[in-house]
């Protein structure tokens, strides 16, 4: 089956929260098949790489298989935190979208949720 290199946004959703200079981002698979993929592929090394330019120094990763969810705790990613950061997005609320965009994986059509807009990218 054809696989396309798609953002993980195609199979999972996410939300970012902040505490001090630490950002936490959940990554939640829509389907069981998606959970098997993110469990294997969304490593803390990859996540650290994605947030390194923001100053991230360390990533902790927690698994919640019953909820098909991962939780990444990304240290020093918020430019000092909500009260010190110079960034437009001082809380790092938009970092969930950054993760969903930057983490890319080979995805086949059958892994997408029903009616996913990504289906259009598969021509056959």
């Amino acid at each position, binding site marked *: 089956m054809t696989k396309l290199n798609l953002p993980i946004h195609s199979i999972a*959703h996410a939300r970012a929260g902040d505490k*001090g200079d630490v950002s936490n981002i959940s990554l939640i698979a829509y389907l069981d098949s998606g959970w098997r993929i993110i469990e294997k592929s969304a490593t803390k090394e990859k996540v650290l790489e994605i947030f390194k330019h923001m100053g991230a120094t360390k990533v902790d990763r*927690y698994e919640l298989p019953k909820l098909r969810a991962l939780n990444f705790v990304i240290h020093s990613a918020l430019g000092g935190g909500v009260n010190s950061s110079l960034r437009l997005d001082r809380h790092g609320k938009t970092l969930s979208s950054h993760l969903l965009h930057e983490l890319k994986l080979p995805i086949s059509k059958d892994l997408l949720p029903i009616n996913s807009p990504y289906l259009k990218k598969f021509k056959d």
Partner: protein
Amino acid sequence: MPKKVFIGCGAGFSGDRFDASIPIVKEFRNISDPKYLMFEVLAERTLAIAQQYRIKNPDEGYSPFLDSYIKPIIDDCLKHNIKIISNIGAANPLGAAKRILEIAKEQKTKKPKIGVVVGDDLLEYMTNEEILESPTMEGLDFSNNQITAANVYLGAKPIAEALSKEADIVVVGRTVDSALALGPLIYEYNWKNEDLDLLGSGTICGHLLECGAQVTGAYFADPGFKDVPNLAKVGFPIAEFYQDGSFVITKPKDTGGLVSKATITEQLLYETHDPSNYLVPDVTADMSELILEDNGENRILVKGGRGKKAPQKLKATICCDNGFMGEAEISYAGPNALARAKLAGEVISERIQILGLQGQLRVEIIGGGSVHFSMDEASSYELPNDGDYRVRTSAIYPKRYQAQQMVDEVMSLYCCGPAAGGGGRGYVTPQSSTASILVNREIVSPNVQIKIL
């Protein structure tokens, strides 16, 4: 012991929708089980600002939005025995209670009995030195700064105690957000310290409620991927809590939004670090074995919450003045807009050097992934050179005039910058930075008191 306890959340942050609690109150009118309405309206920053108001006027320092949240619902709540629990007290819980009594009088409601929890303000019983000697968990080194606020996060027990004194309304200052729900549950079910799994479940329930509509489909919609019906009328959450520690999350009838496993999971992990060790003063909650089940339309049953021993120390947030932030923006659009925007950013950087302003200047290009990359960092988005871009610069300086100087430099681009820059805006705001410290319970406990007004 009641079979069910209902808890609604009418606000998830300071400034949340003022009319959000009305549908919850309407729904609660026909329920005979115990019912509570919580308002979570106190962020870390909010408290430092509130302290400043209280210093200027001892009657102030409670939430500036108190009237907006309380006025629409107080009469109905008192009539239908819906108890209100809120951290609306901010830096002055007693002042908040007095204001609520005034509102009740103005509206000619029955006179409410108000329980007030005091004792979170460390400045009342710790010296600056003692506070600064406490171990720092996260945040900045404050040893050279004047502390403007220092508040310890209290737990749910003072709220439960206020309810046992028959309070209709409980007003607190700094208290851990989830305790606004856990307090009523401890009171209704008479949980003891050793009921760790129940305390854990109650904390998880409070955590799901504390950000208001973030659990009922708000902050969730991603059109085409995660659709949410009628977001403009999103219903705020209601928890239906059972004796065994399980609970349903739902929302009022005839409201928009969505309650699904996905909305619950996103909120569960929001601002959570280790899901097996979610620390609050009353318990270490464990959400790692949680199970979510469909329970009807917009109803999700949550079960499997657990708890472990409470942490030994309490967390406190301290705030200090931290200079002034200047922020300014100007737009470039049309042919070659990206190049012009970048040139503008470079000009500002050079001007700041010429002026001798010390400190980091951040330059972002709005329209070019500004929330994920500064101008100097290579954006991962493919950016067309023609388009609509807005340069944003920001910096924090010790003095207001310095921040204003930076803003003025951006405004000077009107005449001195690249071609066709427009829509310049700039402002200077005082900054308060925060750090978290750990405090021994023995210092705090004797100072926590319940006052009944």
